[in-house]
């Protein structure tokens, strides 16, 4: 076999493999997009239609008209924003402390908090929030999202701070910096890519969280995933608006992920190789 042909075949094989691996995720997405742009009649058609003759843009307008979609979007923004911000404020210094003091046991404790199923403490917390009179506000959701966001931030930051060379901090120590100055002026700026990754993952997990919202949210405090779920009614499933809503919910996270893709990959592989 000639060399150019072989190279071509290699490339083709690679492309097929990549397509096979990515296709499930991609197909879901394309089908969702297709659903959101079709009228109900096309959605029920057999054989299924991928690209309709007429686009049903009204699916998108319906979700903004029929529901308090903007309110739910705002709720999601507040809950995710507050839970992520607070997680960063607490988690970054915590990760630094654990990494520098080699407190691996406390890291495991945090991991356990993350692994415990949310439902197991949801009921007691519900009663607690009720007792505190917080139900009906966004506070219960913000607080309970911390269970998800804080461990993520701490774990990513531990990994990141462990890879930053100790000599840099020793140099700062000799240069006359206090512990806080070392953290603020040396460790933190160097850890910026790690913080970005922690931020993005925290946003994704918090934004998509469904279980906490469905239990704790009232009509006015719903977040987007719960709102989408509520579009399903007993009489009828309107696929078009549902898919449109789901896409709108996914969009912010999608944009964020694509925009910060390189940072995420860097963060997920941090510590895999010793940087030179």
């Amino acid at each position: 076999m000639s060399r150019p042909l072989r190279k071509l075949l290699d490339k083709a094989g690679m492309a097929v493999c990549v397509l096979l691996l990515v296709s499930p995720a991609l197909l879901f997405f394309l089908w969702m997009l297709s659903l959101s742009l079709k009228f109900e009649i096309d959605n029920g058609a057999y054989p299924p239609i991928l690209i309709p003759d007429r686009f049903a843009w009204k699916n998108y307008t319906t979700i903004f008209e029929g529901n308090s979609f903007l309110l739910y979007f705002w709720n999601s923004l507040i809950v995710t924003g507050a839970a992520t911000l607070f997680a960063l404020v607490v988690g970054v210094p915590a990760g630094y402390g654990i990494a520098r003091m080699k407190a691996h046991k406390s890291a495991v404790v945090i991991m356990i908090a993350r692994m415990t199923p949310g439902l197991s403490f949801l009921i007691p917390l519900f009663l607690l929030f009720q007792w505190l009179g917080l139900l009906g506000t966004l506070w219960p959701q913000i607080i309970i999202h911390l269970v998800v966001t804080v461990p993520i931030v701490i774990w990513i930051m531990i990994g990141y701070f462990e890879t930053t060379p100790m000599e840099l901090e020793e140099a700062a120590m000799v240069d006359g910096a206090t512990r806080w100055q070392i953290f603020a002026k040396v460790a933190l700026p160097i850890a910026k890519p790690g913080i970005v990754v922690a931020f993005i993952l925290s946003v994704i997990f918090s934004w998509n969280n469904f279980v906490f919202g469905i239990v704790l949210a009232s009509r006015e405090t719903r977040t987007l995933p719960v709102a989408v779920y509520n579009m399903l009614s007993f009489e009828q499933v309107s696929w078009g608006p549902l898919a449109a809503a789901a896409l709108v919910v996914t969009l912010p996270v999608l944009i964020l992920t694509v925009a910060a893709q390189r940072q995420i990959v860097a963060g997920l592989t941090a510590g895999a190789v010793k940087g030179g």
Partner: protein
Amino acid sequence: MASVSIRNVRKSYGAVEIIKGVSIDIQDGEFVILVGPSGCGKSTLLRMIAGLEEISGGTVAIDDRVVNDVPPKDRDIAMVFQNYALYPHMTIADNMSFALRLKNIAKSEIAAKVERAAGILGLGPLLGRFPRQLSGGQRQRVAMGRAIVRDPKVFLFDEPLSNLDAKLRVQMRTEIKEMHQRLKTTTVYVTHDQIEAMTMADKIVVMHDGIIEQIGAPLDLYDNPANMFVAGFIGSPAMNFIPGSIGGDGFTTEGGDRLPLGGRVPAASDGRPAVYGVRPEHFRLADEGMAAEVVVVEPTGSETQMVLRPLGAKTGQAGAGREDRKRELTWVLRERTDAKPGEVVRIAPDPALAHLFNPDTGLRL
């Protein structure tokens, strides 16, 4: 500028003692080099002076002030690390001025100090760049600049040249020495490279297994090593050690060859086992000398290095076993030679420059 006094300093990690009671006096303005094989505790000792390691026992004093419990930032020292430890998110100028900015010194004064240090090290055009945009040698210079700017009492260097290539290392060696001659700041420098130690130091401290083997001026260590470790560590190629015994007015090797002692026979030592130490450059051709077979000839241009295998007066022939290889001698001669491997030469050591060691304690007799 300051003196540094290290008194009976110990360091242990749990039950393992890394530094076993070390005392060094460093005078104001002196350039002292701690040298020894890896794991001898020299870097740990330096980090204890810097305050980056706790001191398990004894005292470290800078200018007569015991600093055992003083944090690094209050010791008024500057340190250059092996991997430079430049702040990657700061420009060169910011790297150099970091310590001054922490002290809230006036901006104009900081700029002047950075400019002066940059001038000394030729870093002027690089001040706006980031460390990642610099070569190894330039980074090294920035690390030194960061130390100079502070005008500290003591400079500490932790193997600063070991990441550079051979040519650059020689160049930076000169620069560091020049810098010291210019600033006259007390300097403690750690290296495992004895050539660095010999060429740069006012005073060398040879360490081994957590103790000090000998302290002295470079040539003093070379000429009068206190024991076999120092004799073997200082000087390249290393000193030849020939086991045997003292008898009459000379020394008899295990192979039966007679080596001269030049009348320096220690008292009451007839028949006593000893090790005869002679540097590779202190052999000369001699008709009555010991016979040895040439194994390898390595010309470098300026000199020739030869590996010889003594024939031994008893057997009259060279062996090639493991034991025989241990007995091989190195000879360095300045003049060119046409000796070929397999030939037999007769050489004799200069008795005035030879040393005798106790084979049990390693101490010089």
